[in-house]
């Protein structure tokens, strides 16, 4: 085999990697936050009493579930100038990632809401809690417990999806792998390093989720 794996060859490029990794993180965190907000809105739409609003919410989720993220990114990236707005690559990537992830967030939140029995709302009503109080003390804590694990998975999904931002000229980790690989011709090394970066990020999220979970949830085992 004429190729030997030598990590040393890409040491000069590790500085850029740090910058790229920071971008990946920024992209991911922003998109996660935004998609939660939009997703919450869509979830509310889907529980609305108006049939039109419900259909709109469902349509949103179905579009995001069935259309490739890459196509969505291209549409936003190229639509900007057309509408007279100068959209930076980063902004386009964040918007695309957020809108797409929001579809999945909406489903996660909806499942969380459905899991709360109607009796909870009744008991809270009967005790005189206001809408806000009911949500804050009774509904939200229960929803949070249900969505906790799927939320963690979705966060990981966003981190992995951020790699598509390389297609719209964002200098994140995947873009670094491509660029560094083509200049140094050390594709194996750049692949392994990039993979490690993503692996570490995902495992951190996983471990963080488990640790936080143990801290927050102490409901005890069922007696039955």
């Amino acid at each position, binding site marked *: 085999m004429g190729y030997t794996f030598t990590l040393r060859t890409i040491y000069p490029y590790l500085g850029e990697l740090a910058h790229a990794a920071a971008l990946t993180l920024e992209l991911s965190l922003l998109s996660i936050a935004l998609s939660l907000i939009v997703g919450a809105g869509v979830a509310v739409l889907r529980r609305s009493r108006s049939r039109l609003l419900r259909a709109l919410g469902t349509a949103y989720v179905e579009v995001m579930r069935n259309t490739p993220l890459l196509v969505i990114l291209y549409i936003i990236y190229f639509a900007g100038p057309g509408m007279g707005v100068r959209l930076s690559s980063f902004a386009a990537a964040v918007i695309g990632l957020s809108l797409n992830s929001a579809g999945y967030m909406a489903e996660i939140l909806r499942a969380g809401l459905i899991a709360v029995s109607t009796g909870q709302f*009744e*008991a809270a009503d*009967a*005790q005189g*809690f206001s809408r806000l109080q009911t949500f804050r003390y009774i509904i939200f804590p229960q929803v949070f417990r249900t969505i906790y694990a799927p939320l963690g998975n979705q966060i990981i999904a966003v981190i992995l999806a951020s790699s598509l931002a390389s297609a719209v000229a964002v200098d994140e980790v995947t873009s670094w792998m491509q660029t560094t690989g083509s200049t140094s011709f050390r594709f194996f090394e750049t692949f392994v390093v990039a993979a490690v970066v993503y692996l570490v990020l995902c495992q951190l999220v996983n471990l963080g989720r488990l640790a936080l979970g143990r801290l927050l949830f102490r409901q005890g*085992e069922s007696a039955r």
Partner: protein
Amino acid sequence: MSPVLTLDGVVKRFGARTILDGISMTVSPGEIVCFVGPSGTGKSTLLRCVNGLEALQGGRINFEGRNVHENARSIADVRKRVGMIFQHFNLYPHLTALQNVMLAPVIVHKEPKALVEERARALFDKVRLSHRINAYPAQLSGGEQQRVAIARALAANPHLLMFDEPTSALDPETVGDVLAVMRDLALEGRTMLVVTHEIRFAVDVGTRMVFMDQGKIVEDSDPRDMLAHAKTERARQFLSSIRG
């Protein structure tokens, strides 16, 4: 003594079905009114109309002189003074028993936490569950959960207690525990509305039995009297079928 509760021609419909067909009655302080009758005849719905969980299509309900359904404010006021116990307990699963009991007085009634905790602990004594105050609902048996639910309703110092089939979802062994607590409350002189299939309880503890069928009050009298000499054929049929 002025009545605690007055129902005047109350009508409740779900779509095309009429569940309550002109209900009129009064409840005086200290009465223990037991509602009996076949399933689906509107007994639970009646209770839910009293505290505004259901809206009315006709008629009027007055609680302590005020129209319950006048506006959102009146409903909120009524809920502060009426306690409800549900068939399926509806305890808040993410809170301990103690927290369940303390939540509404602190958040809704805005009472100081220390005071509420003291009262809550006393209530746990009363329902004989002091050893379980830090347990979560999932760790409690059905009967224990229902007793916590009773403590939760009592914590708000209600003027009226409403029980919606409190023992229907319980194992036979634990039914007795819950009924015992309810008996204690009755002996204290509380005003209680109880929807139940436990005729024994109605006879032993109730001061009044109301037999409902198809959305109407068919008979309303002393439980012992109704059991021995029901005035209507339907009531007689129902009571004898339950006995069997």
